């Protein structure tokens, strides 16, 4: 493990700074940050599953949706306490991750992405038809118990969750396991050739990705208090997650976080000028250009700029 003290100093500064934030900013800004936090969680989980291993999943809302729906149904329809509902939701999502993993045994690349897309559309249609008394059908559910009241508490909860996930994933990815996962994305055959079981590594990546997605989805639904199939199992939602991870930088933990904050704040600043769905136009345009010309994301741009600056200082 390549750990330096200044990494931890940076993490501590970041977490400390964010925790002090409610003292300085308005609750409107805090609400924006809450969304950024959840988006960051989803983007990190997408990156674990897809960004590292190269098995691009277009069905990530499938996993998030399982987590969100499980806890929503358990708390709302069966009056089960949130302490039990969220862990069961995470477990269910990991089962979902297992389902997603099965096709990954046989196919990869663009075909795998299509299968996951089909999974998402399938569950979108099934949720509306099968047991609408439980899922609320097309209209979804509202009145799901919320965990926090007010923007400040919501911010603390979402940020602690995000920071805990980000930090543990960052540590995990610095181990040999994390290196092996990224190696699968580069060349799966040679990972197998060096005597590692790619199946087990992939299974691990899928389960971890599903774990994080389920956790994020469950807490997110308890923040929103409502759930609807079209808001969740939607290509636009997938697009937001994907774009956050892509603009930030794949195969990093900081990248998706950065991307999520960048996107959410961009959206917030665009709101006065472009109130509706038009902002996806700007979003997507930026993402597309960046993806075409700088596939490694903003993080890479930053670090390259930093290197250049260092060179100039030292010379």
């Amino acid at each position, binding site marked *: 493990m390549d750990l330096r003290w200044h990494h931890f100093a940076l993490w501590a500064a970041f977490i400390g700074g964010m925790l002090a934030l409610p003292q300085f900013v308005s609750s409107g800004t805090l609400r924006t940050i809450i969304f950024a936090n959840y988006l960051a969680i989803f983007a990190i989980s997408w990156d674990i599953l897809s960004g590292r291993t190269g098995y691009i999943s277009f069905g990530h809302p499938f996993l998030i949706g399982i987590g969100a729906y499980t806890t929503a149904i358990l708390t709302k329809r069966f009056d089960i306490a949130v302490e039990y509902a969220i862990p069961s939701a995470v477990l269910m999502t990991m089962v979902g991750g297992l389902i997603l993993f099965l096709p990954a045994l046989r196919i990869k690349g*663009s075909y795998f992405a299509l299968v996951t897309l089909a999974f998402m559309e*399938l569950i979108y249609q099934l949720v509306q*038809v099968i047991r609408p008394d439980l899922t609320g059908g097309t209209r979804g559910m509202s009145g799901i118990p919320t965990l926090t009241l007010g923007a400040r508490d919501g911010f603390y909860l979402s940020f602690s969750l995000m920071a805990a996930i980000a930090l543990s994933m960052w540590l995990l990815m610095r181990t040999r396991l994390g290196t092996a996962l990224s190696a699968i994305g580069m060349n799966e055959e040679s990972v197998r050739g060096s005597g590692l079981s790619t199946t087990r590594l992939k299974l691990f990546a899928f389960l971890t990705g599903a774990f994080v997605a389920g956790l994020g989805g469950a807490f997110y639904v308890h923040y929103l208090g409502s759930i609807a199939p079209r808001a969740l199992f939607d*290509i636009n939602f997938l697009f937001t997650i994907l774009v956050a991870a*892509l603009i930030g930088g794949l195969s990093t933990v900081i990248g998706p976080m950065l991307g999520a904050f960048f996107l959410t704040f961009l959206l917030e600043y665009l709101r006065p000028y472009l109130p509706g769905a038009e902002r996806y*136009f700007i*979003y997507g*345009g930026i993402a*597309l250009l960046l993806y*075409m010309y700088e596939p490694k994301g903003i993080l890479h741009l930053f670090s390259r700029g930093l290197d250049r600056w260092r060179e100039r200082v030292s010379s």
Partner: protein
Amino acid sequence: MAQIIIQGLLLSGLYALIAMGFTLIFSVGRVLNLAYGSYLMIGGYVYFYLTQLLGVPKIVGILMATVAGCVVGLLIYRLLVKQLKGDHVAIEISTLILAVVLQAGIVLLFGDSSKILLPIVPGVIHVGGATVTFSILAATIISWVILIGIYIFIRKTHTGRAMQAVSMDAKGAAISGIDSDRINMITWGISGTLGAVAGVFFASYTQLSPSMWVAPLIIAIAVVIVGGIGSIIGTLVVAHIIGFMEILTTAILAPEMRGVFTMLLIIGVLVIRPRGLFGREEL
């Protein structure tokens, strides 16, 4: 019973037309163009704008829609697909992003609400208890004409045979002196044109809305995945399987379940037999 057969045939003809352009690109360039649904959307909206807002004759509207589709297809190939140089996953991701961008563009121009297209050919006919609008009948006939035309084009003409060659082995085709870039350009142009025509008819079958590109894209994906690479006959057969299954599930189970079979088909075939039912040995 007669009603199911008639409706199934009509819907399947439309689906075959929708899937055709997607099959062509996938066969020749091995590229899954997730922005394909946008061609349909653009075709539909161009037709709507010209005929219903400007009052241009319908035939001119359809022609302009095809021109728009062709141009968009060529632009996507030039500016996006060619730049990514055969990185299939990157093409898939960027075309998906592009599709959402185009959807947002449509919202920007025409607003969020869905629009009803006036029937292209007004009139209704009753056949064996089924009500058949002339619009969908015309769509089916035109789709069959186009399908047969494409089949002949690919089998008989020099360019069509070059397309087949590139589809089988791009390197081998290049050695035989085929300019695969030119062939790809032609294919993307044809694909955009077909998509736009299909879009006009698809929009008159359902309605125009900024999110109308998703459903035909999924149908096209299903048809191509199940039909297999480079198989026009496969496309035709699978379009009929999916069309009939949709009509049957609508009639027997529930209209909301319409797409479930299509999704299961995609998942099942990709997991069990990734080269498709009619495709060449590959992958």
